[in-house]
């Protein structure tokens, strides 16, 4: 491993301004800031160095921080995550990039049996501050294994935190919070939103919005629609159409999938009396089931109709020309909204 002299970027002196950037660039800036803030942060992944990752999320970082901070690993996901575990034991804060959602499974054992369980096994004596970044979801016309939504597997795994931003500002804040967390975080990036722009205040304090908090994105009165990651924009689109048609949707962006901020969500449902859950993953056994089950249990007597779920079907992710049928869109969301409103 060659030693590069890292050219630290000086963010501290920059003025605290808000700038517009894509979600992908916001992640890049957040990673840069994390590398700047803590010398123990190292990035690891396939093709994250010179190439800057296949989505360019790590673009320029190896050049600026050197190949001891931004490390291209051999092509092996279990190897990458298992190595990150050892780095964490040595006091580092590794941030792994899994190239696409479908390639996280070779690392499943190291994630589920090691990353998630290390602290518990060692009764708090060993911390596992590992962040695993996973671009996920469909809608980009990709070949097989490039459009998976595996979040339910990880949310069901105790010991992990699972989060996903839906916009640039959250991407920037949440990636830094995840890296700073002493718990392992599976950080799902909504790949089809990488190019969507938003305002980011790079110097906003980290603690103004805790990592596990959900956010009401649009207030509404008739029904709550809860979504996360790529489906937040789709739900907002549905809310827009709904508004034109005289239906008032309250959209909640979950942000954290484990733990889930049921406080915020249930407050919304108690107000609207109805809930639709949206995600890309297959409905059967998906995270929507947990949301529906728990909200129903807690808000049983406030619910005016059963919680409905919109999501993928009980099929593998299909070929690109079929994905528009698989993926929830505003119409399908509104269809379920209608069913809730006129049961």
């Amino acid at each position: 491993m060659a030693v590069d002299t890292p050219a630290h970027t000086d963010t501290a002196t920059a003025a605290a301004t808000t700038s517009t950037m894509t979600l992908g660039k916001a992640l890049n800036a957040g990673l840069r800031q994390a590398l700047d803030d803590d010398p123990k942060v190292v990035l690891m992944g396939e093709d994250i160095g010179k190439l800057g990752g296949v989505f360019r999320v790590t673009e320029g970082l190896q050049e600026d921080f050197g190949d001891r901070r931004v490390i291209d690993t051999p092509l092996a996901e279990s190897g990458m995550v298992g190595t990150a575990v050892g780095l964490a034991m040595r006091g580092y804060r590794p941030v792994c990039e899994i190239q696409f959602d479908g390639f996280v499974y070779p690392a499943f054992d190291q994630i589920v049996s090691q990353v998630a369980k290390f602290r518990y096994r060692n009764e708090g004596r060993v911390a596992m501050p590992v962040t695993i970044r996973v671009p996920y979801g469909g809608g980009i016309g990709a070949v097989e294994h490039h459009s998976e939504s595996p979040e339910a597997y990880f949310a069901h795994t105790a010991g992990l935190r699972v989060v996903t931003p839906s916009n640039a500002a959250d991407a920037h804040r949440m990636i830094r919070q995840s890296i700073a967390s002493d718990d392992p975080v599976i950080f799902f990036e909504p790949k089809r939103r990488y190019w969507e722009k938003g305002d980011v205040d790079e110097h906003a304090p980290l603690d103004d919005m805790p990592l596990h908090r959900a956010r009401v994105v649009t207030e509404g009165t008739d029904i709550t629609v809860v979504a996360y990651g790529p489906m937040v924009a789709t739900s907002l689109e549905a809310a827009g159409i709904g508004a034109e048609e005289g239906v008032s949707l309250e959209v909640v962006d979950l942000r954290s999938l484990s733990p889930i901020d049921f406080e915020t969500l249930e407050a919304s449902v108690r107000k609207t009396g109805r809930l639709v859950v949206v995600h890309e993953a297959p409905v059967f056994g998906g995270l929507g089931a947990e949301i529906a089950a728990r909200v129903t249990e807690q808000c049983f007597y406030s619910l005016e109709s059963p919680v409905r779920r919109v999501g993928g079907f009980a099929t593998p992710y299909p070929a690109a020309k079929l994905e528009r049928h698989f993926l929830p869109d505003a119409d399908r969301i509104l269809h379920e909204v209608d069913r809730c409103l006129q049961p």
Partner: protein
Amino acid sequence: MAIAQLQVPADRLTAWAGYDGLVQLISVDGQRTVGCPYWDLVADVDALQLRDLYRDMAIVRRIDAEAMALQRQGELALWAPLLGQEAAQVGSARALRPDDFAFTSYREHGVAYCRGVDPVAMLRMWRGNGLSGWDPAAYNIATPAIIVGSQALHATGYALGITLDDAHSAALAYFGDGATSEGDISEALGFASSFGVPVVFFCQNNQWAISEPVRLQSHATIAQRGQGYGIPSVQVDGNDVLAVLAATRLALARAYAGQGPTLIEAVTYRMGPHTTSDDPTRYRSHAEEEEWRAKDPLVRLRALLHNEGLADDEFEQEVAAAAGDTATALRLGVLDLPNPASDALFEHVYAGAHPLLDAERDAYLAYLAESDEVS
């Protein structure tokens, strides 16, 4: 256009001990090399067959170029070009018998071509019309594996099936240099060694795994890796179609004879980008690309043919015409591919009945019909 099968004599098999040097039968300037102990394995390859190999390689290159063009024109979502790897793919695939079975990754269009797969069927997946394009059992080649390394285990299991059937055929597993880092490749080598099954591991070391050079994967050669499992392993010049054919024939003959697995490292070069989404200028030098351009496998075979007076203008025109026809048919066929019907989404998930999926399909199709009425 199959290359006839040479019967490798039994004593030739037992003489196998892994060859230390790089197997090369055609030099970069198109001369036959002397002294390499693999010549006997292609002694039967006559002028006609050499020309067949050249034609295969030229057609495969043309298919690849047409696919690149189709992608650039927005007719394919993605393409992983094989440019530069024609000799490795044609030389190995032409060594196969019909009852052998090939397992490939996403770049082995040349192998699929040699197995008889219609190029239009190959492009179907890349156009997004389906997740694959052909019936594996019809051509004895599996559809492409996208999870790097996964297919080597499938090949090993298939070879175990051959052993259990007491059959005399082989499985051929293709994978890249990057793939050698994945645990699945190691486990495949281990299982194959342990079970002694008839599988040939064919690694196209094209120097790159997207932006990662092969030295990032390991400090030893890939052939050495195989030896670590007790698997006879050899490095061949992957841009030399005869060397590849010879080494694959020997490996297959070992397999047929019940002598277990072999590993072949075909040293070649990915002359194009990783896929149409890639930009190699970010990670490799023009000089390196030029260095390998000089070793172009097609140029080399053409030089041999010319040096030996086996190719004239007429032949070249015939080949160009054949390649052109293939490309035209490919373009027409691809543009003509029927879009999948919406209910195809729900087909072939399960063989047996599945009430949940049925209900989901019915509800969705009803919803679609309803939306159609509305709009």
